[in-house]
């Protein structure tokens, strides 16, 4: 039985994120090989994910915050501060 576009759309995000089961993956990509519309939509979704991943800036936690969290776990925190800063 071949997959319909409607079913492919249900699996679309999970396909982008590598969250499909083997069976789902097989059926999904089978459908994509025959349906250009779903293929394009899949490529768009992948691209959108990439943009978010690449473009959203990750800020560093301010030193004051690092210090106060360190106080929580004050034993041998020096090596820990190092790993945090180099993360």
């Amino acid at each position, binding site marked *: 039985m071949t997959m319909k576009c409607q079913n492919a759309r249900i699996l679309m995000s999970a396909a982008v994120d590598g969250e499909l089961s083997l069976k789902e993956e097989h059926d999904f990509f089978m459908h994509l090989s025959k349906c250009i519309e779903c293929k394009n939509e899949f490529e768009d979704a992948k691209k959108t994910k990439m943009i978010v991943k690449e473009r959203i800036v990750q800020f560093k936690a301010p030193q004051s915050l690092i210090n106060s969290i360190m106080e929580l776990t004050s034993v041998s925190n020096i090596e820990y501060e190092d790993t945090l800063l180099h*993360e």
Partner: protein
Amino acid sequence: MDKPDPSRNIKTRTKKESLSKEEHQKQLEFQKEAVVHLNSLYNYALHLTMNPDDAEDLVQETYLKAYRFFNSFERGTNCKAWLFKILKNNYINRFHKNSKEPGKVDYDLIKDFYHSIKDVQNDTSEAESDYFHSLLHEEVYQALQSLPEEFREVIQLCDIEGFTYEEIANMVESPIGTVRSRLYRGRKLLREQLEEYAKKYGFNTDKDQ
């Protein structure tokens, strides 16, 4: 004699106070498991509150709570996901009354937010010709913020923080199928928003590559 008061803020303990071996172990484990996620938590808090001071408070509160209840953390599971959930709950308790309407974006707030934080990564790929690569992080951020919260949230947790669907489902307290469909619809909406920006720059969005 003073009895230990569990409700007392952990922060108030002095370093000189001697710790039991157990407590010492707990601290070491907490550092290894939980404190390493400080930057991620701070960013999540920033995205939720849009305010560096509130974000700092929220993260602090989260770690206090996490430390206090560290025994209930299920060993072997994702500690980052556990911390995110605590932070989200704290956020709802503290800020939800003033939350903005879904889909309503305060662009000035976002601008101020970006400019109030100086430690921004430098953008090295401005010269890219692909129109999506010409988008600035501020614009992508605005586009993301313009999405209804239920969509924005799953995109953040999935694409920025890299959680699995199972972890996200647990965090947003919805079935995995709901996570799937929110991600699908959210990405579609986001794509439309980004294309609006692209049009503004005069890129032809019909022609990919």
